[in-house]
């Protein structure tokens, strides 16, 4: 189904989630959620992936690419907590929060994410580790521990459900650093 058109083209069942949605509601729904500002010098932060804290900015800013930064700030969840002032209103759905806007980031939790596998045959398996492309911000998953060049393993996170029910999005999995199954 092409999304360019913008309107619904067939009646489908309700999708379980989109990348960036929360899976569990731990601790009575209280996440360790923090508000960050998207680095004004960046091209914007995509929802549903991990972001990097910008070193030396009093922990206020995040950026999508590693660059000279050393710490992953957390997972960018799909929370409509800011107005996308300069977002393109035409169809396309970039899912990118523009620079200078505020967004919610979770250091811990369980989330829906698209993580295409680097395994042979591209099959995602529960227990796969999550790796983050330093240059593009793209998420991947793989079973073996050898990290390809230009990737960083996201500490603690693994695939806990390789094929969530009612998912219409290819390669959508549930990742978590809290629960193992």
């Amino acid at each position, binding site marked *: 189904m092409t999304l360019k058109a*913008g309107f*619904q*083209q067939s009646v489908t069942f309700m999708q379980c989630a989109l990348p960036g949605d929360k899976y569990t509601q731990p601790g009575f729904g209280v996440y360790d959620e923090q508000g960050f500002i998207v680095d004004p010098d960046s091209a914007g932060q995509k929802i549903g992936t991990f972001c990097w804290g910008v070193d030396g900015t009093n922990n206020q800013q995040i950026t999508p690419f590693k660059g000279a930064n050393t710490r992953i700030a957390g997972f960018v969840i799909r929370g409509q907590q800011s107005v996308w002032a300069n977002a393109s209103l035409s169809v396309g759905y970039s899912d990118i929060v523009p620079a200078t806007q505020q967004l919610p980031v979770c250091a811990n939790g369980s989330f829906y994410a698209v993580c295409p596998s680097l395994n042979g045959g591209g099959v995602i398996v529960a227990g796969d580790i999550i790796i983050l492309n330093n240059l593009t911000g793209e998420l991947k998953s793989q079973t073996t521990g050898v990290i390809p060049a230009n990737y960083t393993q996201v500490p603690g996170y693994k695939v806990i459900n390789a094929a969530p029910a009612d998912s219409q999005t290819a390669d959508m999995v549930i990742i978590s650093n809290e629960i193992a199954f």
Partner: protein
Amino acid sequence: MTLQEMQQQRQEALKTKMFNDAKFSTADVNDYNAQLDKLTGHNPGFGEHNFDMHAGFHNKVYGMHFGRGKDVILAQDSAQAKLMAESVFHDADTQAFGIASNGVPEVLASVFVNKIIEQLFQTTQFSALTHEFQQGVWGTPRMYIPTVSRVGASALYADNDSNGHSEINLNYVSRGTVRLQNMCQYGDLQNATYSFSKINYMQQIKKTALEQIRLEQNRIGFRGFAGKEVYGFLNAPELLPVIPSPASAAEPTSSQWIYKTAPEIYADILLMYDSIVQIAGGNVDPRTVKVKLGVPPAVFTFLLKPNALFTDSAYDFIMRQFPNLEIIQVQDLQGTGSPIGSVLPNYALMVLSELNGQECALNAFSSILQSHGAVRLLSSVIEKLSYTVSGMIAPQPIGIARMSGI
């Protein structure tokens, strides 16, 4: 010679000529004198001169006197009085009126009919296939239509667990508008001239503009407006792919209805309807949902083809199966070639009125007609008309099916 002398000389010459031109014989003069002597007073109406004239004598004084004046023009004698009278009556020889008749002029026998026959144009069915959807104002450059999609998942129950979630996602679908203008200009002399033929020129000019605008808005409703993100039924990006009509049995290289039997035509309609029902999640019920089926005039008659037993036409059968279906002829769906549709294809268009209370096709516009006011110029009036439209927007593409090659 001065100018005054020239004028005097010319007057003398004219007087001489007048007398010379009379050329009466002595007998004529005498005869006329005898007649004139008998005149004692009123001699009404000669020729085209519309006045009474008195010519005659009184106490042997000859002269003339015109009815509306009091002055008497005296003559020296009866002969001069005759010449004076004839100078008024023109030539005595032509007074006899005996020109042969050429009958009643045909123009008087003819009748100029006051019923004006006006040019006929194609029907504009775009508005019949859509719901009117006016948004914004005349100057609106763009429409953003919010759409809400929902996601969510339930989880197995546990006392101290807060699992499971429900979210919505809001997106704005964007469509452009196109603003077009048209002009009316009518001159004073044009108006006066056309009025001789009992035509209301100003009204006719405005009607022309409005007809043109109506046709253009209809055209945009089917074909959109290139470069402005304004779309129509034949090119809107949100619509599902066009279904090709299956080939006919009689002419396997063609799918056109001209070669198809009544059951084959009915099968085409069923195929379109099925393409909607299959993806509509049970929201379509042929007994309750109103459906409009547009077909080109070139193929409309083929709906009347009978079945093999001559008991039903395809039209009859379709109407029985779909009691809420209305079939309309849509010129804008017609192709080209011979038979029509063999070069550029004919299209069939099936549009559901609504799905679960939401309209399937919208006639989107910001201003259907804006008059900028009539301006009085030196001897004419000029008026600009404009409109802002967004063509066809299908917020529920599920309820629209298109078929080509019929």
